[in-house]
């Protein structure tokens, strides 16, 4: 091959072999790196280190056996490195009598060596063997690797229940190893082995979409089911920052409240006491003297205080702008009742009624007042007072609620995600690792257990 060859370097050729058991053609993709090779025709496990491909084991595969979602021989680029899928195995654990299986794909790159893709219920992880040992703190059920703490999730005995292709170890059907997973989302450290022979590997969660894109796959990717042990939560990382922002907004609201209370005019512009005799046949309506409302467009608070006991007065009001003729029409009832019955003393209503008229422009105004009541109630004294530009605390209440509700919802969603994640672990509940979500989850869990204890 000359350096100027327009066709470029020749593609590496694979070595063609035949199965010693059934004679089917075999393909060895990892050259001299494979230790075991499985014939896809007769399911013989062959010794790839032996030039004669000695048969190590033969197994019978079911008719409806799982086929790899990423076919053997598929090439793709992961994290900037090209890999070829060369092996596939299924491993199964049994928990409380139920079998759970996941699939592992062996990936090979001549320069980088082997990587492993695992798939369980549509959740994928890219694994590589760790070069150094994590610090195993068995007392705390954690391991530490490169300063990051990984929490123990689950330990189970995994059995190899199907194999296909090439493997860089002596693979055996029915072989069992103890597997322990330690998680720190989106990573997981897996410890597997028997007795003294232990292998540590680290996996990182990969989304289906990214994987299918990397391998240019055209088939439909499996839809992820539930929450996986190291699946990154879309919300958990945001919860702390969200509450920091809530704190910031509450401080800002408080500052705003102070500013509003300091700058509001809260100006008393009119106050007068009137008497009303409903039995009188005279015209009940009258108008007040004109009073000025200063400043910018703002609210007007009108208070009606009546000396009542077991009686009522209803007052029709119209706040009329003398210059523009625009009227703000409203009616308010003031009623107060009290008494005693078999339950004791009771009262109902109030002698005071306050109404806030919104967004009144400055100008000269007067009130048209028309009281009504029961003629049998006699003369009722009532005082009408008008104040300009009064701060409305309720909007601050609405504002705080509007900020708290989404923050609480996001926290609940994040807690729910962690709850679903750890429900599949050996513990059932998230660890109290000092994080906001962990603390809240454990508080909720303790609250539930104390309540169930009370019920008993």
């Amino acid at each position, binding site marked *: 091959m000359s350096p100027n060859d327009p066709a470029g370097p020749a593609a590496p050729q694979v070595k063609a072999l035949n199965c010693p058991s059934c004679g089917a053609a075999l393909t060895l993709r990892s050259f001299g790196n494979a230790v075991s090779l499985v014939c896809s025709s007769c399911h013989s496990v062959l010794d790839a280190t032996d030039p004669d491909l000695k048969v190590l084991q033969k197994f019978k595969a079911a008719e409806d056996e799982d086929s790899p979602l990423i076919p053997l021989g598929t090439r793709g680029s992961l994290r900037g490195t090209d890999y070829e899928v060369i092996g596939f195995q299924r491993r199964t654990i049994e928990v409380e009598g139920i079998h759970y299986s996941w699939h592992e794909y062996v990936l090979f790159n001549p320069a980088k060596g082997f990587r492993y893709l695992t798939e369980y219920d549509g959740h994928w992880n890219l694994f590589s063997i760790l070069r150094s040992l994590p610090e195993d703190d068995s007392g705390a059920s954690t391991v530490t690797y490169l300063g990051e703490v990984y929490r123990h999730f689950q330990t189970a005995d995994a059995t190899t229940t199907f194999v296909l292709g090439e493997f860089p170890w002596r693979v055996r059907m029915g072989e069992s190893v103890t597997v322990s997973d330690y998680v720190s989302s989106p990573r997981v450290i897996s410890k597997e082995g028997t007795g003294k022979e232990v292998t540590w590997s680290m996996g990182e969660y990969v989304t289906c979409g990214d994987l299918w894109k990397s391998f240019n796959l055209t088939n439909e990717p499996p839809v992820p089911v539930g929450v996986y042990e190291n699946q990154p939560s879309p919300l958990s990382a945001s919860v702390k920052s969200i509450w920091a922002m809530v704190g910031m907004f509450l401080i*800002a609201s408080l500052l705003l409240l102070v500013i509003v209370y300091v700058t509001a005019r809260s100006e008393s512009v009119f106050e007068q006491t009137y008497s009303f005799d409903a039995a009188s046949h005279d015209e009940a309506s009258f108008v007040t003297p004109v009073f000025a409302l200063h400043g910018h467009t703002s609210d007007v608070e009108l208070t009606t205080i009546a000396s009542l006991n077991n009686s009522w007065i209803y007052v029709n009001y119209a706040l009329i702008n003398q210059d523009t*003729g625009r*009227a*703000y*029409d409203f009616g308010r009832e003031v009623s107060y009742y009290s008494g005693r019955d078999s339950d004791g003393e*009771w009262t*109902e209503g109030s002698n005071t009624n306050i109404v806030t008229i919104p967004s009144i422009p400055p100008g000269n105004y007067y009130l048209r007042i028309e009281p009504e009541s029961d003629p049998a109630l006699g003369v009722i004294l009532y005082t009408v007072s008008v104040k300009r530009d009064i701060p409305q605390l309720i909007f601050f209440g609405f504002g705080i609620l509007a900020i708290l509700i*989404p923050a609480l919802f996001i926290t609940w969603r994040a807690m729910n995600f962690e709850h679903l994640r750890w429900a599949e672990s050996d513990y059932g509940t998230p660890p109290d690792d000092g994080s906001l979500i962990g603390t809240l989850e454990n508080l909720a869990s303790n609250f539930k257990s104390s309540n169930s204890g009370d019920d008993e």
Partner: protein
Amino acid sequence: MILKGFLIYGLVVLALVSVAELRGWSLDRVDQVPNVPKTVRDNPGSYRSVYSSYHHYTGGK
């Protein structure tokens, strides 16, 4: 993304609260009547209140 969204949302809420306070918004129901004649000052009975036929509660417990 969610943090940015929440930040914008919170700022909008604070802005709305500020506008509500500045403009004097209220939850109370008030009807606006344009062009009330100036004669109302001299003859208040000529004005017909929107709420004059309001059926109010006259009982107690």
